[in-house]
């Protein structure tokens, strides 16, 4: 079975130069601020330790989100709350931006240690991202803190400033995340930006609200408020963890069950997974959004499920060699199976139309992009299989390229780039 690296599935996949640079910059920043704080001494050490502990705790219980993302909302809320702190139970907070960054960095490292101890390598890029977001807020707000009116007099002014800075933190976070994903997933920057906005906003808003809550509650009620006012965010975090868990399980199940056609001898071993890896690669090339790519992946995994209706398997499972009529019947039956789930409506349409020609007589504008992609990727894999023979790959691509009635030329071009990249990756 081909084991195509799929970074959307999480985990640590190679240390690319952009990410290395990011992590190095964060490391330098952390070292510098910690050194300076050590030299100058901590201002209000009890408060610093309390917030540091909250950051460490948040980092310890960080969560994985769908799409291979990592998030630590509690750590973020704690760190930004510390950056936005005005006073602790009436005593003005005297710490500067450097101390905020240092406390955050140390908290993050302490919280990450148990993960390292059990062998989970840290996602340095996402830790760096969180540190930079906090840095942005701290650098803007700490010098301002003594100029602001008191909470009792003009709470609105303070809130407007805080919200503006939270937006800034969110922006920094999402921009860096998008750049990292643009490089690692080979997608367009704008696609990545849109994906990040969609994936991070809900949790980001919750963390931001909690950061403001922590800062103002600590002002009114002292340091104990830290513990109490993190509780709502804890509920949020539990909810997102569960959501991410079921998403991963779902994908895992579909990936596993997509093999029924292989075990039944209908298609070659590994066909569904290779087609899905190719299809998702093409989807990224063509700028499909993350939810669309997920539907594409599901559809690609299940695209041959309709072959179960055949009494006898097609030789080699290669639908590209079957008659058009039979191909259409398989697609229809596969769509029917998926329709019975009652939930995957998009996937039904994609699978149903995978056998339709791209350009019967004039371009068919209603044919979904995902169907065109699966059609091309499926045909390519039928012709090449798990073979790594470059000549055979080139011949298969040429055959698809020439058949402009069946296959979308733009999709075939993107497919050839994906094939090129996979070949380069496997020859490393």
């Amino acid at each position, binding site marked *: 079975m081909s084991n195509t690296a799929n970074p959307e599935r999480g985990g640590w996949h190679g240390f690319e130069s952009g990410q290395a640079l990011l992590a190095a910059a964060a490391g330098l920043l952390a070292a510098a601020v910690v050194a300076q704080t050590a030299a100058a001494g901590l201002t209000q050490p009890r408060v610093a330790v309390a917030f540091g502990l909250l950051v460490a705790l948040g980092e310890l219980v960080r969560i994985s989100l769908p799409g291979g993302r990592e998030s630590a909302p509690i750590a973020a809320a704690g760190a930004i709350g510390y950056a936005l702190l005005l006073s602790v139970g009436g005593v003005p907070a005297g710490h500067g931006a450097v101390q905020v960054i240092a406390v955050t960095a140390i908290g993050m490292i302490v919280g990450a240690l148990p993960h390292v101890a059990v062998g989970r390598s840290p996602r340095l890029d996402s830790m760096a991202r969180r540190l930079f977001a906090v840095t942005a807020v701290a650098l803007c707000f700490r010098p301002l803190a003594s100029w602001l009116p008191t909470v009792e007099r003009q709470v609105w002014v303070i809130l407007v400033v805080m919200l503006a800075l939270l937006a800034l933190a969110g922006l920094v976070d999402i921009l860096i995340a998008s750049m990292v994903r643009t490089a690692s997933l080979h997608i367009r920057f704008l696609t990545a930006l849109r994906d990040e906005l969609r994936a991070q906003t809900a949790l980001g808003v919750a963390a931001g609200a909690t950061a403001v809550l922590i800062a103002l509650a600590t002002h009114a009620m002292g340091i104990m408020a830290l513990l109490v006012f993190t509780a709502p965010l804890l509920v949020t975090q539990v909810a997102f963890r569960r959501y991410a868990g079921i998403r991963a399980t779902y994908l895992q199940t579909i990936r596993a069950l997509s093999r029924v056609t292989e*075990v039944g001898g209908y298609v070659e071993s590994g066909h569904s997974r290779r087609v899905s890896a190719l299809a998702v690669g093409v989807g990224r090339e063509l700028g499909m959004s993350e939810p669309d790519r997920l539907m594409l992946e599901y559809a690609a995994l299940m695209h041959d499920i309709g072959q179960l209706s055949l009494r006898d398997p097609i030789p080699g499972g290669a639908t590209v060699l079957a008659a058009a009529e039979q191909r259409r019947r398989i697609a229809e039956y596969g769509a029917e199976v998926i329709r019975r789930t009652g939930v995957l409506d998009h996937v039904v349409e994609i699978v149903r139309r995978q056998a339709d020609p791209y350009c019967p007589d004039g371009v068919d504008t209603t044919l979904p992009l995902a169907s065109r992609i699966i059609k091309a990727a499926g045909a390519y894999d039928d012709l090449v299989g798990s073979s790594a023979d470059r000549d055979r790959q080139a011949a298969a691509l040429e055959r698809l390229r020439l058949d402009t009635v069946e296959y979308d030329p733009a999709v075939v071009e993107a497919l050839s780039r994906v094939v090129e990249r996979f070949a380069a990756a496997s020859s490393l």
Partner: protein
Amino acid sequence: MRSLPRPAQVYICVIVALAVLVIAQAPLGAIDWPTLLVLALLFFICESFATLLPSEGRVHVSVSFSATLASVVLLGPVGAAVIGAVALFAMRRDGLPLVKRVFNGAQFALSAYAAGVVYELAGGYTGVPTGEDFSWIIIPFVVAVVTYVLTNGLLMIFVLVLTQGVQSVRGHGGALAPSVVPYLGYGMFGLLIAALWGTLGPLSALLVLLPLFAARWAFAQHAAQQAAHEATIAALCQAVETKDYYTRGHSERVSRASVMIAREIGVRGGRLEAIRFAGMLHDVGKLGVPTKVLQKSGSLTEEEFAAIQLHPMRGLEIVREIGFLDEALAGIMHHHERMDGRGYPMGLVGDEIPEFARVIAVADAFDSMTSTRSYRDARTVDQAIEELRRWSGRQFDPEVVDAFIKAVERHGWQRPEPEPRLPAGALETAQHDHDDPSVPLRVTGDGDK
């Protein structure tokens, strides 16, 4: 309202009258109207956007619950009752009938009023808390939350009993008990709102509730994905079954029977989930058995029998990577082992057979016997149970068989609609069933097996 039984009508009228009385008798001047308006708006928004938060079991807590409890501290009993009554106007997508709306409003109002009275009796101070008295109100507040949950629960249970009978509550009873803890948790968020009201005013509610709204979104997504996951597994299992006309619904029923047995022998929580899916997926490997072997009439050759014996392994090959199945994987692989060691694929004996496999084996055989097959009609439940007893100890684990019989006695068993048997040759169907213990597979040269 007309369709409700008479006692239920009386009960609802009494509750509504009480709620109206409670609110009407209060001196209006004593209420902090601006705060009340803001909280009412907040409650209205929370209720209108079906903001349910899940807890253990089936009972859901609404985000509006936090707003109500905040009003107990900020406004006192009457104000809280007014806030609760706002439920009457909430816009819900599910479009509750008027009777339910009115009853909901009344029972929220009464619960909130009761909580407010108890809060004051326990020494709680009504109004915006200041820094010093914050810790003093914690205990009265907890007592108030408990009062609210209890009053609410009791009012609901009575209306359920009166409208749907005692039976309906018995099912709910178990679900209500463990849900008290999350109620307490979400109730405490009301205290957070109240505590910051002095500093931030209504914004404190917004900041506390925003994470809860995000949580509620994620919980809803989780529920939707879970349902999708289940539906997808079921649909794919069905697709596998289409290879044989008679085995439609087999996976789903084996899953149901396996869960009945598992419950009976004390399997709970995640393990119960796992066995449910394992029951559904147990025969997925049958796809690896050539159709012509499944549909062959007469004796099987050794090779063909071997192909059938391999299907649990093929199933395992497919589902192995589904992480959450965990110990259920062994259940799928060994569901054709026999207690006397004459099963397949490994020939395990007695306790060597994993528990889940012993459970699925009984469920599987039972459903096979109570379904129509091309070579015989469906048996009745009693006949099938008799057959299970006969093979208990040799093929099946006696404890599992007993547990299943008990479960069937308690909950009954819905046999599949007896399929009309097709005239021979009308459709290609299996001529034997590897799951049917009463008619063992015939293998050439092994006539007495």
